[in-house]
C-alpha cells in the first residue's frame, strides 16, 4: 500500500530542548498509529509536529511523497487535531460552536452532533457542560470537514464508556473512508489493528 504520511528520522524540540528524535513511521490509507511512552516522552510534541504546529528540528515529514514543510498551509488543511485543550468558547452554545466550525472547515454541524450524541445539548452553553460533554463537542469538531489526517492527543480523557464507543465508531468510520489516525495514550485505545510507536524519554 502506498504511504500517505511518512516520517523519516523526525526530531522535534520544545522550548529549545530536543524532546524526541529518530522517529520513523509510514502510514497508508486507513492505517492508524498509536504513540506510547511515559509522561514527557514527547507524544504531544510529536503530534504538534505532525499537525504542522511544532517546528521540525530534524528529519523529513512527507505527505504523498511531498515534504510537508514545502507547503505548510496545504498541510494544515489536511489535519484535524484533538488536543489537550478542548478549544471551546464557554459563552457559545454547542450548536453555535459547531455551526461556526462547520462554516470555517466545511461539513454539517447537524450531522456532527448526531454522530456524537449531542443533539439534546444543542442549545446548552458550553460553559455549563461537564468535562466529558465538552470532550464530545471537540470530537464532533473532529468529524467536520472530512480532514484526512486525525491527530488525537489522549482522546479518551474525560470520556465515559459511551463516549469511548462514540470515539471508536468515529475513528473506524474515518479509517474506512481511507483516513489516517495518529493517537497518543497511556491507556488502551479503541483503535484496532494499529501500529504502535514507543517514544523513549
Amino acid at each position: 500500500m502506498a504511504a500517505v504520511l511518512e516520517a523519516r528520522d523526525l526530531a522535534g524540540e520544545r522550548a529549545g530542548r530536543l524532546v524526541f528524535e529518530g522517529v520513523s513511521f509510514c502510514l497508508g490509507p486507513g492505517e492508524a498509529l498509536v504513540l506510547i511512552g511515559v509522561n514527557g516522552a514527547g507524544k504531544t510534541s510529536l503530534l504538534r509536529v505532525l499537525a504542522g504546529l511544532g517546528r521540525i528540528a530534524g528529519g523529513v515529514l512527507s505527505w504523498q511523497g511531498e515534504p510537508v514543510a514545502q507547503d505548510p498551509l496545504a498541510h494544515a488543511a489536511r489535519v484535524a487535531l484533538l488536543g489537550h485543550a478542548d478549544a471551546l468558547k464557554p459563552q457559545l452554545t454547542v450548536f453555535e460552536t459547531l455551526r461556526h466550525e462547520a462554516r470555517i472547515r466545511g461539513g454539517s454541524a447537524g450531522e456532527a452532533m448526531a454522530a456524537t450524541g449531542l443533539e439534546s445539548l444543542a442549545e446548552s452553553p458550553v460553559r455549563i457542560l461537564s468535562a466529558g460533554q465538552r470532550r464530545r463537542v471537540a470530537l464532533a469538531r473532529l468529524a467536520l470537514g472530512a480532514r484526512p489526517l486525525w491527530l488525537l492527543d489522549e482522546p479518551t480523557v474525560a470520556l465515559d464508556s459511551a463516549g469511548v464507543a462514540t470515539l471508536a465508531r468515529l475513528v473506524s468510520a474515518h479509517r474506512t473512508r481511507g483516513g489516517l489516525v495518529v493517537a497518543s495514550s497511556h491507556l488502551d485505545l479503541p483503535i484496532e489493528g494499529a501500529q504502535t510507536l514507543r517514544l523513549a524519554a
Partner: protein
Amino acid sequence: MRAWLALVARDLAAARRNAGDMLAAVAFFLLACGLFPFGVGPDPVVLARIASGVVWVAALLAALLPLDRLVGADYEDGTLDQLLISGLHPAAIAAAKAAVHWLATAAPLLLATPFAALMLALPLRAIPILLAALALGTAVLSLLGIAGAALTLGARRGGVLLPLLVLPLTIPVLIFGAAAVEAASVGFPVAPHLAMLAALLAAAAPLAPLAAGLALRSAAE
C-alpha cells in the same frame, strides 16, 4: 473568504456574549474624558482647546483594554491551534482578529464619542471630523494592537507589555488625528490630515497582519 467571514462572525458572537468587556471600554472612555473638567477646571475655552487631544488619548487607551484577551484567550484555550490548522493563512487569522476588535470595541467607542466631545465643549462642527478621524485611527490601532498582542502571547505580564509596545506606534495616528479635529474647529481644511490617517491605515492593513500572523505561528510552536 467564507471561512474568514465565519471566523469573524464566531468571534463577534463570542464578544457579544461578553458584552461586559465592551461596555467596560466605553465606560472607561467616558469616565476618562469626564475626569478632565475636574482636573483642569470647567472653563469651556480651556476644555475646547484640549478636547480633541483628550478624546483621542482616552479612545486609544480604552481600545487597548480588551486587546490582550482577544488573542490571549484563544492562545490559552487551544483555539489558536485549531485556527492555525483551519487552513486559513495566519495573516488572515490576524486580520480577522483586528476586524473583530474594531467592530466590537472601536465601533461602540465611536458611538460614545459625541457625548465625550460635548462634555469637553468641543465645537459642534468638529464632531463629524472627530468621528471620521477616530474611525480611521482606531482601525490603525486595531491592526497594530493585534500585532502587539500576538507578539506578547505567552509572555509573562503580556498585559503590561502590550501597551508599552503599541502606544508609541500610535503617536503618528494621534498627531494627525488631533490635528484634523483642531483644523475642523477653527475652519481650516481637514482633508490633508484625514488623508494622512488613511495612508497610515493603508500601510498598516497589509503589514500588521503579516507580522501578527508570523507571531501567532511562533507562539504556537
